[in-house]
């Protein structure tokens, strides 16, 4: 029934600048990803127990894609018991194996009181695969729980992603959501954190790099619904060739969010004349006594930085690589240690060096 769907359009603010108008859902039939889960022993639940966890963080469907995912999800559920620390990193790897598929992976992370877990979710496909992935991630962190989630988009050149992450943090919990976005033709992620318990905190961090004709599209929400909550968002990316990136983010502090601290920074390097990036930060604050800041920049590599390195005898292409990695350094520093970091570095180097 996918052909009968009413898709959103770029007329809607949340889809502004997106490539949603290019999407033809009739090209895709519902299908499955090839998925592996490693390190999930003791927390990976299935069957009715898994299904029961779906939707806990998403009572209202934010858009038609989240709705489609909720209607027919391929569920992976991780449930961590009270006071448990899951020492192994759970690694979920999805592969899109053929063209013409739309897939609805759903990851639910349910962390009970004072528990701890680290999850890495990777999305991969070959360059010749024309498919659409619509992933939804729900994270529930109960009181004092600590959840780290890292999404790595290593999709091929012709894959699309329209994704959604939502995290709910209870009292004194800490949620860290990381995204590394390298692949895909059009890759969108809407990432929302709701801090509903006093003292809850969240970090949202992204590294993105688009080249060729790619587009990365991020929409973020930091919603502070309880006192003394803390959020810190840092999204940094680069666009090269004729690629594009969009970032729009909202810090929302309700009247309950007194003594909240919320920070939001988005910076994008434009590495080619034909590349384009948009950055739109927003604040919506309904109470006093809060500390908030947002910053956003879009621009090329600083000429003075380039000249400084070149005047030491560093060739231009190496100087550019140093400056770009220097730019990403604070993001890479925040990323959880993982065996995939080296691969990410290599991919960024390849994107920097390649010309299209």
């Amino acid at each position, binding site marked *: 029934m996918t052909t009968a769907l009413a898709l959103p359009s770029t007329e809607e603010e949340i889809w502004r600048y997106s490539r949603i108008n290019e999407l033809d859902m009739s090209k895709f039939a519902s299908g499955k990803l090839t998925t592996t889960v490693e390190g999930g022993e003791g927390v990976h639940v299935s069957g009715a127990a898994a299904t029961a966890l779906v939707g806990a963080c998403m009572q209202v469907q934010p858009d038609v894609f989240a709705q489609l995912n909720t209607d027919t999800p391929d569920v992976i559920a991780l449930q961590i018991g009270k006071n448990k620390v899951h020492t192994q990193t759970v690694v979920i790897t999805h592969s899109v194996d053929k063209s013409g598929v739309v897939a609805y992976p759903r990851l639910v992370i349910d962390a009970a009181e004072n528990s701890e877990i680290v999850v890495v979710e990777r999305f991969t496909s070959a360059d010749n695969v024309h498919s659409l992935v619509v992933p939804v991630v729900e994270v529930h962190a109960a009181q004092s729980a600590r959840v780290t989630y890292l999404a790595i988009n290593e999709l091929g050149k012709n894959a699309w992603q329209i994704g959604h992450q939502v995290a709910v943090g209870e009292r004194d919990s800490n949620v860290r959501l990381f995204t590394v976005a390298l692949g895909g033709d059009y890759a969108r992620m809407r990432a929302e954190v709701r801090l509903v318990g006093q003292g809850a905190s969240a970090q949202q961090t992204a590294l993105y790099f688009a080249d060729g004709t790619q587009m990365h599209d991020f929409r973020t929400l930091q919603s502070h619904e309880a006192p003394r909550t803390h959020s810190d968002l840092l999204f940094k990316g680069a666009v090269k060739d004729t690629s594009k990136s969009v970032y729009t983010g909202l810090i929302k502090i309700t009247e309950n969010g007194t003594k909240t601290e919320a920070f939001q920074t988005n910076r994008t390097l434009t590495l080619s004349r034909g590349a384009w990036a948009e950055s739109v930060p927003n604040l919506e604050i309904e109470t006093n006594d809060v500390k908030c800041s947002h910053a956003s920049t879009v621009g090329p590599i600083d000429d003075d930085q380039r000249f400084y*390195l070149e005047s030491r005898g560093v060739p231009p292409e190496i*100087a550019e690589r140093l400056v770009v990695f220097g730019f990403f350094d604070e993001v890479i520093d925040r990323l959880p240690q993982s065996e995939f970091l080296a691969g990410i570095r290599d991919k960024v180097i390849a994107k920097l060096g390649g010309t299209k």
Partner: protein
Amino acid sequence: MSKLEIRDLQVTVGGTQILNGITLTINSGEVHAVMGPNGAGKSTLSAAIMGKPGYEVVGGSVKLDGQDVLAMPTWQRAVAGLHLVMQYPTEVPGVKLSEVLSEALVARHATLPNLNKTINEEAARISFDSELVNRAVNVDFSGGEKKRNETLQLAVLKPKIAILDELDSGLDIDALRDCAKRVEDATNETGMGALVITHYSRLFEELKPDFVHILAKGRIVKSGGPELADELERDGYAAYAVTAE
């Protein structure tokens, strides 16, 4: 022996002519001080020699041991043996000094078997906190740390000719002494030639000039020995600013 020959160098910035024909020859081991009032073109001279974007050479030549410096991109000028110590060293977030030096040496096809050891020894020599070597270059450095960092790079990269643009600005007396002494030592130990751009003669307590040139309105209006610096200290630039009209 190396030789940097600047002949009738004319430079415009944003369409305005700043240098009106500078001629200077710097040989290995020599220290040439270029002194002048604000706006004389001192920093333009250093930027033009190193090829900074925005500084357009409209006449004259710069040669290092016969090689046409102006035909080279900036990084090749450095590899050929020129080094610029900047007045305001640029902050480069996320890029460590050790990475910069390592890449700079690779470009010179020079490998230091133990770069870190060399860096630590050179850092100790100028009282530079070697912890800073592993921090982002110049980011949150004090004025003194920035100039010590610049001097450290010069010591490790061992250029033939160094151009020091106001080494003495923005740093305290101790840092100035350490940096100036290290440059002086380089002229003696490795025969480095130095073009030292400055307002003030206090730099010369440690770094002894062999020649002093007065730059005013884009021209060298007088050249002489160290005694010229003493004269400037006493009488100021007023006489020369007028002469240059």
